[in-house]
């Protein structure tokens, strides 16, 4: 009897051997000595991961239970390899030209690089494959248990062994599948290890078969007799199930992520498919050769109730053939491990690329600045994904309880993954297929598959009524008899509905929707991949019209440059004239030159048009359109820039004009100041010289001239005061003295100040009742304004009995004080000017320089109010306004800011 310890030792040794092989293969690939690694044989053997433990052990059990139906599992892939290898070749070519990393990537890429579609396919794959991985765990665990049962002293525990198997496989898959930092590289090591496992599988099964036929049964004829005697030969063939399962197996062969991984992603050379087209069916034939004999002999000689799924293992064990049993165990182990490793690799690539990485990148705000950083994250996310997928498989195994419930999982997984088929095949051959169609088909198929296959499969979780009567008693929604179709095999029923409705939804939605430009381009590239795929875009020696090329080049490059180029080329060729022969080398040079001006795609299309050797493809046109769009964008950017420039220039001009205007204003102001200062000084100087130099002046004359001097000196002082005042007010450096007070008192003070020392009688009319208003303001400044206005009335009012009326009232939150005299007022055309500096309007009367009103206006603005000329009154009229409700607000604010 083989001890458990020995078994575990052998397993570890075997895994170590696989690692060694993988390591060596990677080393050789890195050194470029890998010709045999890239042989079609390795490729064919790697395809054998199609044969999992389910096939290795389960085929015998399948045959023991259902007769020859197991053949369908082999028949599907065989038909694909032989009858559809050209379709596979297209898949491989697309995979290489589009640098596809998984089946989800392929579907997404075909339908306009749709992220959402990729996520859907990824989820569908994960949900379908998880039970399948659980199945592998089960088979390894069962095979271990078979040995444990034969070695009672080992004290094994079923639960822990599953856990260790799952963990071991996860570590195995992580070490194998994510060794390379560069996730895009092919996994030569893994593929080689898988090829070795394929050999071990085949040898083990053949060895057991040979032992059974010639060792146990005593030859071929006796074996045939046993088969005839058993139930296997008598099984009825159900045409519906046969067709369906064959079709499912074929679909799964194309759509399974792990098959896609080895067949498309790991493919080195599409010619390998030619070899695989006959070699792989041969491999499958050999794998299936001894299934029936083993089943028949096992049923006959093994005790009743023994599990036919384990005949491959238990038959040699029961005969004491420990070595053979060990080999069979390794065969099963190989089947399970190779499937789990590649499936985990493929799924983790999908999960990582389409779910984890987009989330990570968007969480970083799209700032994938350091590529090294991203690589580490990619690797980490793949490793975590492998761990998560294995954990899912493990928990599924634990929850489903293992045992017989898992046996039917293989086909259910096939049916799930087959839902990708319509979108895949449609995408390869039908340009009208759209993203919306693919999505509609996938979702429809997925939902129906969940409802009709997966749900009834979870038997214990469903109530019997649900299956028998339908949800809520709606009979036509019964999961296994949709739309009232009964009497069908549940599996056939599920596959038929899900795939038919999937394909229908896909077709109808594709016809009804419009593809985006990117979808059109990708569709064209996928469907017509053989028309314009990789290969240098060189020109072959076709007869081109050199003259036409010359004309075109002149238009693009300019006459001189084009002629110079053509002449230099002609000279180089040794031609007589100035036109060179259109040799391929020249055409390529020309294309290069032109592409500098119009872009590579346009140059290629233009030369192609003239040379006539090649028609312009859709791809070329799309590239041209792309370039044009870029140029348009560039030119529109230029346009925006030039608009901005002219805008800026306009602003500069405006600013300059303003500066010039200010400069003129300053000059005018200085002229004015000079005039206003020099005029009184002239009088002072003239009369003081007269007083000094003139003898015999009358005393009255002396007094008169001295008075003039005095008045002009006062006038000068006032002017200087006003100038300083205005300068302080305008610069905003004035500090206001805000106090509380009564308007009437301020007016009293202003009137008495304005009238003191003046002879001319000015009547001031006031309504004292209305003046009893509380103020919070700079009362001195306010008085200054009032004094100015009253003085103006005194100076300029031309009435015979000059009088000024002061009216006070409230208006819209403002305190309004009007000063209206009985003179002729100010002419309408000069009213706007009176507040400008030195704008003395009346020339008839001498008096203050024209700064008074300008100062008043500045003061009132500082106090939060205003002063303006009041139109439509009998005489000259000025209106002062002050904010009355919150008088302190504006001034105090300004005062604070000023300090």
């Amino acid at each position, binding site marked *: 009897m083989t001890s458990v310890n020995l078994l575990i030792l052998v397993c570890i040794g075997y895994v170590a051997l696989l690692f060694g092989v993988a390591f060596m293969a990677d080393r050789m690939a890195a050194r470029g000595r890998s010709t045999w690694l890239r042989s079609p044989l390795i490729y064919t053997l790697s395809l054998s991961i199609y044969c999992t433990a389910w096939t290795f052990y389960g085929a015998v059990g399948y045959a023991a239970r259902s007769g020859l139906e197991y053949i369908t599992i082999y028949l599907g892939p065989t038909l694909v390899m032989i009858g559809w290898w050209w379709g596979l070749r297209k898949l491989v070519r697309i995979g290489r030209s589009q640098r596809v990393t998984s089946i989800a990537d392929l579907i997404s890429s075909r339908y306009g690089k749709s992220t959402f579609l990729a996520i859907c396919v990824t989820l569908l794959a994960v949900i379908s494959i998880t039970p399948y991985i659980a199945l592998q765990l089960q088979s390894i665990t069962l095979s271990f248990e078979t040995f444990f049962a034969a070695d009672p002293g080992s004290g094994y525990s079923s639960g822990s062994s599953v856990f260790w198997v799952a963990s071991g496989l996860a570590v195995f898959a992580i070490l194998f599948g994510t060794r390379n930092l560069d996730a895009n590289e092919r996994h030569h090591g893994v593929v080689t290890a898988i090829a070795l496992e394929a050999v071990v599988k085949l040898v083990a099964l053949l060895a057991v078969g040979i032992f059974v036929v010639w060792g146990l049964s005593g030859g071929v004829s006796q074996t045939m007799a046993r088969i005839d005697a058993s139930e296997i030969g008598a099984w009825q063939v159900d045409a519906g199930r046969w067709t369906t399962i064959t079709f499912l197996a074929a679909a799964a062969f194309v759509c399974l992520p792990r098959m896609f991984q080895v067949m498309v992603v790991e493919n080195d050379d599409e010619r390998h498919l030619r070899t695989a087209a006959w070699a792989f069916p041969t491999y499958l034939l050999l794998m299936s050769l001894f299934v029936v004999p083993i089943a028949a002999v096992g049923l006959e000689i093994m005790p009743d109730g023994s599990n036919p799924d384990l005949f491959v293992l238990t038959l040699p064990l029961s005969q004491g053939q420990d070595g053979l049993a060990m080999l069979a165990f390794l065969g099963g182990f190989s089947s399970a491990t190779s499937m789990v490793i590649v499936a985990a690799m493929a799924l983790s690539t999908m999960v990582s690329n389409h779910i984890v990485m987009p989330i990570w990148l968007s969480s970083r705000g799209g700032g994938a600045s350091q590529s090294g950083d991203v690589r580490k994250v990619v690797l980490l996310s793949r490793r975590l994904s492998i761990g998560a997928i294995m954990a899912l498989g493990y928990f599924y195994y634990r929850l489903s309880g293992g045992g017989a419930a898992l046996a039917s999982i293989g086909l259910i997984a096939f049916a799930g993954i087959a839902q990708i088929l319509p979108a895949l095949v449609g995408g390869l051959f039908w340009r009208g297929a759209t993203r919306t169609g693919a999505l509609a088909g996938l979702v429809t198929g997925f939902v129906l598959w969940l409802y009709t296959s997966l749900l009834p499969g979870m038997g214990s979780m469903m109530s019997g009524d649900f299956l028998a009567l339908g949800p809520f008693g709606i009979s036509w929604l019964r999961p296994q008899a949709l739309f009232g179709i009964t009497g069908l095999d549940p599996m056939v029923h599920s596959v038929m509905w899900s795939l038919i409705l999937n394909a229908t939804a896909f077709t109808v939605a594709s016809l009804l929707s419009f593809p985006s430009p990117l979808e059109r381009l990708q569709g064209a590239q996928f469907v017509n991949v053989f028309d314009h795929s990789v290969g240098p875009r060189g020109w072959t020696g076709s007869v081109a019209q050199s003259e036409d090329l010359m004309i075109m080049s002149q238009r693009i490059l300019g006459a001189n440059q084009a002629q110079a180029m053509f002449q230099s080329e002609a000279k180089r060729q040794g031609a007589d004239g100035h036109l060179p022969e259109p040799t391929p080398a020249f055409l390529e040079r020309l294309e290069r030159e032109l592409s500098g001006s119009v872009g590579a795609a346009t140059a290629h299309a233009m030369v192609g048009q003239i040379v006539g050797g090649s028609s312009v493809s859709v791809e070329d046109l799309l590239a041209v359109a792309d370039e044009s769009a870029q140029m348009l964008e560039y030119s529109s950017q230029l346009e925006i820039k030039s608009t901005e420039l002219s805008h800026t220039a306009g602003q500069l001009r405006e600013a300059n004009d303003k500066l010039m205007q200010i400069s003129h204003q300053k000059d005018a102001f200085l*002229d004015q100041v*000079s*005039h*206003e*200062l*020099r*005029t009184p*000084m*002239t*009088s*002072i*100087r*003239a*009369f003081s*010289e*007269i007083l000094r*130099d*003139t003898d015999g002046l009358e005393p009255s004359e002396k007094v008169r001239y001295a008075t*003039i001097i005095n008045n*002009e000196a006062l006038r000068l002082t006032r002017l200087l005061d006003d100038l300083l005042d205005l300068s302080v007010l305008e610069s905003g450096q004035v500090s206001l003295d805000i106090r509380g007070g009564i308007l009437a008192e301020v007016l009293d003070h202003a009137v008495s100040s304005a009238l003191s020392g003046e002879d001319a009688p000015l009547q001031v009319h006031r309504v004292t009742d209305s003046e009893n208003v509380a103020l919070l303001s700079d009362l001195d400044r306010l008085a200054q304004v009032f004094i100015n206005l009253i003085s103006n009335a005194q100076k300029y009012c031309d009435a015979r009995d000059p009088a000024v009326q002061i009216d006070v009232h409230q208006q819209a939150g403002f305190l309004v004080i009007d000063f209206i005299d009985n003179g002729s007022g100010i002419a309408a055309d000069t009213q706007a000017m009176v507040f400008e500096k030195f704008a003395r309007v009346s*020339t008839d009367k*001498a008096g203050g320089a024209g700064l008074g009103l300008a100062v008043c206006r500045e003061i009132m603005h500082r106090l939060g109010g205003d002063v303006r000329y009041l139109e439509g009154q009998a005489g000259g009229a000025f209106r002062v306004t002050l904010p009355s409700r919150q008088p302190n607000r504006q001034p105090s604010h300004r005062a604070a800011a000023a300090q």
Partner: protein
Amino acid sequence: MGRKVLLIEDEPNIIEAIRFLLTREAWEVETHSDGTDAVEVIRASQPDLVILDVMLPGKSGMDILRDLREVPELAKLPVLMLTARGQVRDREEAEKAGVSRFMTKPFSNKEVLMAVRDLHAQATQS
């Protein structure tokens, strides 16, 4: 030969000072204080000399001078210009317009009298 001065000036105190000075030198002094009709007043008054302010209401002294020189019989009339602006460009402008003598305010009385005498002497010699 008469000695008549026409003083075109809008500042009353300055008018009074100049009138005082010239009257003592036996000049007949006429005054006018608006720029608008100054050229007509000059033509009508036929003075021997004009003292002209620049900043006048209605029409500037510069414009009056230019218009004055357009009139043939007034082209050589001596004009003493007095200005309170007194920048270099004003002097240049005045000379271009054909001023006989240009002075800035405030002036010394002596200078004004000297200028009037000079201008009158030149006019009578030629």
